């Protein structure tokens, strides 16, 4: 009887500790830099890049849904959302002529462009010390599954899952908007393009997850963001 009582007590204590840790994590997650403010900054970055409608905010919505379906925990989802808002903050350091250039870039200009994830990483490392994985997600959002991305040419699962999600939603959001040099892609065209580049540029699992979600929600690209 006593043994049973002890086991029960241990279980209850374990549950309590688990709940305490989860609540603490959630509390820390809520104690964030103001997301609305970050969203506003992200719109500024979008304008610099020449997007006519919100790009980073769209990414944040999509990333959260994909991250949720791929098993990211609450805290990582918060980090992912912030990383999506701030993914191109390193571009502020670059000249607008290069960022918005529609002709092919010269190798030197490409070298400059490739520094923006590193600059973003360094900036965020100083300003968001509590959310220590956000700088990494920003640093690796241009890495490609086959190792041909930048800045570190990471390959496959070397790239943390949230950064692989950012890569897909960045492409989806960019393709779904009109650009001066091409019209917006339809959702079917986006799906074809993602499938084509699955295993080369994008993680096949993330692509599969996106396609699965899109097919179960055929009327819209993605539903409104989870608040």
């Amino acid at each position, binding site marked *: 009887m006593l043994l049973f009582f002890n086991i029960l007590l241990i279980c209850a204590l374990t549950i309590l500790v688990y709940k305490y840790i989860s609540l603490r994590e959630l509390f820390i997650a809520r104690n964030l830099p103001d997301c609305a403010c970050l969203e506003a900054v992200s719109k500024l970055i979008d304008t610099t890049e020449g997007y006519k409608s919100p790009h980073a905010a769209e990414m944040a919505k999509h990333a959260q849904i994909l991250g949720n379906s791929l098993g*990211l*925990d609450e*805290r*990582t989802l918060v*980090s992912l959302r912030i990383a999506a808002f701030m993914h191109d903050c390193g571009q502020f350091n670059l000249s607008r002529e290069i960022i918005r250039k529609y002709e092919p870039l010269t*190798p030197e200009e490409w*070298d400059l462009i490739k520094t923006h994830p*590193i600059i973003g990483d360094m900036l965020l490392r100083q300003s968001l010390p509590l959310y*220590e*994985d956000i*700088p*990494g997600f920003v640093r690796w959002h241009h890495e490609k*599954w*086959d*190792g*041909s991305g930048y*800045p*570190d*040419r*990471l*390959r*496959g699962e*070397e790239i*943390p*899952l*949230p950064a692989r999600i950012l890569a897909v939603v960045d492409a989806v959001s960019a393709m779904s908007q009109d650009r001066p040099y091409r019209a917006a892609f339809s959702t079917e065209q986006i799906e074809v393009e993602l*499938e*084509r580049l*699955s*295993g*080369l540029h994008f*993680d*096949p*699992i993330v*692509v*599969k997850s996106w396609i699965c979600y899109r097919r179960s929600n055929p009327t819209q690209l993605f539903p409104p963001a989870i608040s």
Partner: protein
Amino acid sequence: MRFQPSWVMESLPSGKIDSVFIPIASRAQPLLWFKRHGFKIFVNDPTEGGALLLRAFLQNQGELFSEENEKKFNRTIKKPFDIAMNPFKSWENRPFSREQLDYLFYWREAGFEIHQPMQRDLFWAAVYMIMNYWISVIKCDAPVKFTPYELMKHLFTKQKEAIFEGKESVFALNMPMDELGEEVEASLCLIPLTICDKRAIEDESEIYFHAWLKGYPEISSAKREIEFVKKNWFFSWDSAPHFENMLKKVGKSKYCGITWSGDDLPPRIHEENIAKPLIETFSPNFPKAKFMIKTAFRQKDDYDFLLIMGDNV
């Protein structure tokens, strides 16, 4: 492991480094950063496949696979080969399809017909990339959207983007670790440390590529060979580290950088079990040390570590 050259260089005193010596490379492509920024590079891979990729991507000063060779060797196989002729027949559905095996057989034989060494390296480097793609999509049960011909064409285009002429020379070596010289004069010796616990010290595509290159029908022989040539150059939680061997290879470097990644364990364990013993072993040559940690993915306890040692770090 996540090898981040820019992080290494940011952590060193500026203007002090002009050359980098990497006794055992992790992968070729991340090292392109050093080439792009004008560092002289000495890099070694004891496996033949690894060294081939180092030559094709890194040592190569801008040579691309010629159009003439592309026309000659990137062909579509119209009639399947007799599987009995194929040395890799035991790989059928493990993981490659029959059609993929036909191409792997053809590309290997075709490579021997290319007499210019760099052209052959470029051709086989493209085959490595294709194997890597096939393995990753098969593992995820995703559809293969390109024919082998299209894939090869795509990868030659990728090579055009990656390969360039560097400002400084690159020496890609293929030497056994025991024979590697101890007198290399580079300002920085950089060691990517592979942690071997749950996973093997080499990845799946590396094993298949090695087996394919050597014509081994069974991948177990390739795995054994890679493990043998890399022994003492990885860290295992279960056995004593071989840090003295690493110290012997730092040559006359002014600085030494050791970098690794690890998941499932808190950073403190890495600091106690890897960084501190390394600092102690390397202290006769490098009296000062700086240890840095970066979070890659907190949910998985995935961190990157960098240890920089020298006189004034």
